[in-house]
């Protein structure tokens, strides 16, 4: 127990742990301090000076977010001086911000707009910026509009500290400061992994995803096109937030109904493809292990890393291109599904794949980049036509006048609409690992995993890196070579944590067999396309929604999904078979950590 210090804030007396900031103390005392550059996931910056308060005995106003309490103090959070200072700071920030609220995707979720409303701003007190100074920079996934940037550096702290990608930088100093990509190159040419975490944390509309909505409406309205949507588990656990539900409310059934009314011809479950991923990736893992442990094949790489997260894949392509062989060759569930829809499903239903449009509802901005990769066309067509984020889908549902809360609960279409609980938990960090353990252990030993209720709890949670070990005993005859082998696995989320593992791998100190990495903190449920805001509490709530939904399902292991078994029987043959190789596996591009196109 650390030292407690008594604090008086306005009329409230309380005790706080030494080192608590005034902002945290106010929050625990039930007082609200306005903030702008502060974000619960990020290092404190103390830049915007919106959270200023008076501390008795100190002459200047203090930034509440950056003031650690070390001795008893008396704080005032509301005085003429404080209100004036906050208003002046806000007015100065507004004078630098260019852009109309009603043409902005963040209209309604903009923190600057909310502050302006809170402080009764009804005019620009200082000369406002009347013309754009910067060109809008867009990649397939991300759009940067520096005109709206207020230099709070949340994106910088996200990109450099939280994710350690460093695609963004702070150039210049003082008034001339600019938030830009390295050397101000187009964002498509720098080491951006498209994780979109900066978007989730940008208080304004300076960073946003590249919305395909208008094009998508065009396709939906075209009677010639057969438009199919697959939905990932994380958007279902989060899209409710855009419609007034508490974080952690899963709205799968209602969303299915809404999507049908929106005009999608089929609504499928990406969890189905997640189960397929487990079959392929699990088999790949066992194959690799056998080659290493039995055959002593030194060309095969272990540990094997998961490859479901396109942000993580691009991170490895940029920062660890010489380690690409360690990634599983499996495509992500989104891409596997697209490749199957335009081959297996097209053949089964007689729909011309040329007229088929596959949309993926994802929590992820990097999925847009992924579906546009040139190699992702193994079906003979573009496997997935659109990657749509949770936020973008919420806009479309609202635009169509659909009240999500009033929707009935509807099921997915079948086949390809049945996902197991194992596929569902892909949405949370540790989920792919848990799903893999549930299946691989049972395939090898013929017995279910030795965990109560199939909950592989050691790989769950929100710690940055978690690991677990599982000893194989009495395996089935064909897996005798694994008898007594202790399988060691690790889970990392956020590329900064993944980097720790990769550095260990570089030094030859990484003693695992299988590692799950998700580029975003919290896994997919904290993805860059998810509703704004995000915080550790919100992500934990979404994880709870996903895990409780898993408990409600009857099929909770990928290899027991009857539709998966049907798919192998009717079409693919066996995991890692010839057709699987063609449709479900991919290759990677070494990109390096400088520029994609040189200086």
């Amino acid at each position, binding site marked *: 127990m650390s030292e407690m210090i008594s604090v008086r804030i306005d009329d409230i007396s309380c005790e706080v742990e030494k080192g608590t900031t005034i902002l945290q103390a106010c929050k625990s005392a039930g007082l609200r301090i306005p903030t702008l550059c502060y974000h619960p996931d990020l290092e404190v910056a103390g830049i915007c000076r919106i959270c200023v308060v008076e501390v008795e005995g100190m002459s200047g106003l203090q930034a509440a977010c950056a003031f650690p309490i070390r001795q008893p103090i008396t704080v005032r959070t509301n005085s003429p001086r404080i209100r004036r200072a906050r208003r002046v700071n806000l007015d100065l920030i507004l004078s630098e911000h260019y852009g109309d609220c009603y043409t902005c995707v963040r209209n309604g979720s903009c923190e600057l707009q909310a502050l302006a409303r809170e402080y009764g701003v009804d005019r620009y007190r200082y000369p406002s910026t009347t013309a754009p100074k910067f060109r809008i920079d867009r990649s397939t996934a991300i759009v940067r509009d520096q005109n709206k940037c207020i230099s709070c550096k949340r994106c910088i702290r996200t990109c*450099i500290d939280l994710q350690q990608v*460093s*695609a*963004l*930088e*702070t*150039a*210049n*100093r003082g008034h001339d400061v600019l938030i830009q*990509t*390295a*050397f101000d190159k187009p964002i498509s040419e*720098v*080491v951006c992994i498209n994780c979109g975490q900066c978007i989730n944390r940008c208080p304004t509309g300076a960073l946003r995803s590249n919305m395909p909505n208008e094009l998508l409406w065009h396709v939906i309205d075209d009677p010639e096109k057969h438009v199919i949507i697959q939905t990932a588990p994380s958007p279902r656990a989060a899209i409710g937030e855009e419609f007034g539900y508490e974080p952690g409310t899963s709205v799968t059934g209602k969303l299915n109904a809404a999507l049908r009314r929106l005009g999608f011809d089929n609504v499928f479950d990406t969890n189905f493809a997640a189960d397929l991923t487990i079959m392929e990736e699990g088999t790949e893992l066992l194959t690799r292990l056998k080659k290493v442990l039995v055959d002593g094949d030194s060309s095969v790489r272990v540990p094997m890393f998961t490859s479901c997260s396109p942000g993580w894949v691009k991170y490895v392509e940029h920062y660890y291109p010489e380690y690409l062989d360690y990634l599983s060759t499996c495509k992500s569930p989104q891409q596997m599904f697209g490749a199957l829809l335009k081959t297996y499903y097209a053949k089964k239903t007689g729909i011309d794949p040329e007229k088929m449009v596959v949309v993926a509802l994802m929590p992820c901005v990097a999925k847009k980049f992924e579906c546009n990769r040139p190699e992702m066309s193994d079906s003979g067509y573009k496997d997935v036509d659109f990657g749509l984020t949770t936020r973008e889908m919420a806009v479309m549902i609202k635009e169509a006048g659909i009240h999500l809360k009033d929707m009935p609960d509807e099921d997915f279409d079948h086949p390809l609409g049945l996902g197991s609980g194992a596929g569902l938990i892909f949405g949370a960090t540790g989920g792919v690992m848990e799903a893999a353990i549930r299946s691989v252990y049972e395939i090898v030993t013929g017995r279910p995993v030795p965990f109560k209720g199939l909950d592989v709890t050691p790989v769950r949670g929100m710690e940055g890196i978690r690991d677990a070990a599982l000893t194989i005993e009495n395996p089935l005859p064909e897996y005798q070579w694994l008898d007594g082998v202790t399988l060691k696995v690790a889970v990392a989320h956020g590329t900064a944590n993944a980097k720790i593992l990769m550095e260990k791998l570089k030094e030859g100190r990484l003693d695992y067999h299988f590692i799950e990495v998700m580029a975003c903190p919290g896994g997919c449920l904290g993805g860059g396309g998810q509703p704004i805001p995000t915080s550790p509490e919100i992500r934990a709530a979404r994880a709870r929604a996903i895990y409780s939904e898993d408990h409600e399902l009857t099929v909770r292991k990928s290899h027991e999904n009857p539709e998966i078994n049907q798919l192998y029987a009717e079409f693919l043959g066996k995991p890692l078979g010839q057709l699987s190789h063609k449709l479900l596996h991919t290759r990677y591009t070494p990109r390096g*950590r*400088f520029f994609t196109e040189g*200086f």
Partner: protein
Amino acid sequence: MTAGIRAATDELQDVLRKFGKNRTDLLPILVEINRYFGHIDSNSIIEVSRYTGVPIGEIHGVITFYSFLGQKKRGRFVIRLCRTISCDMAGKDQIVRVLEKELGICFGETTDDGMFSLEYTNCIGMCNNPPAMLINDKAYGGLTPERVVEILDSFKLSEYQDMFGYGGVE
């Protein structure tokens, strides 16, 4: 040409070898490269990134933060005139005119012979003796138009002595 680049790269590696490879070594490395080559070009940034593991964006950010580090080639003598209040009130503008006229360049430019660069700086702590300027590491205070001409002449003279090797005054 290729040989020249090769040589520059070798020299750069020699400079780098003098330092550690930690994040904290970044600034000393940049200061040294800037001193040695007169500027830090894109190639150097990439090499520093390779050496220290610090991403190029962050290195670029550090270089643009410090006005004494630059990506553009500067002259052999960088003249930095203080533009802050005390010097401004003590007749900075007059000094600006003399410097520009004597060197035939504007602020932000370098003379064609690569000898002098003109820049502004914020306060250099010479408020007791304004207006003031720095020439490389040396500070000159109490500037008057006459004194500026004298100072420039002394630099030009020493430079010609270096170049042509004839006897010096001192």
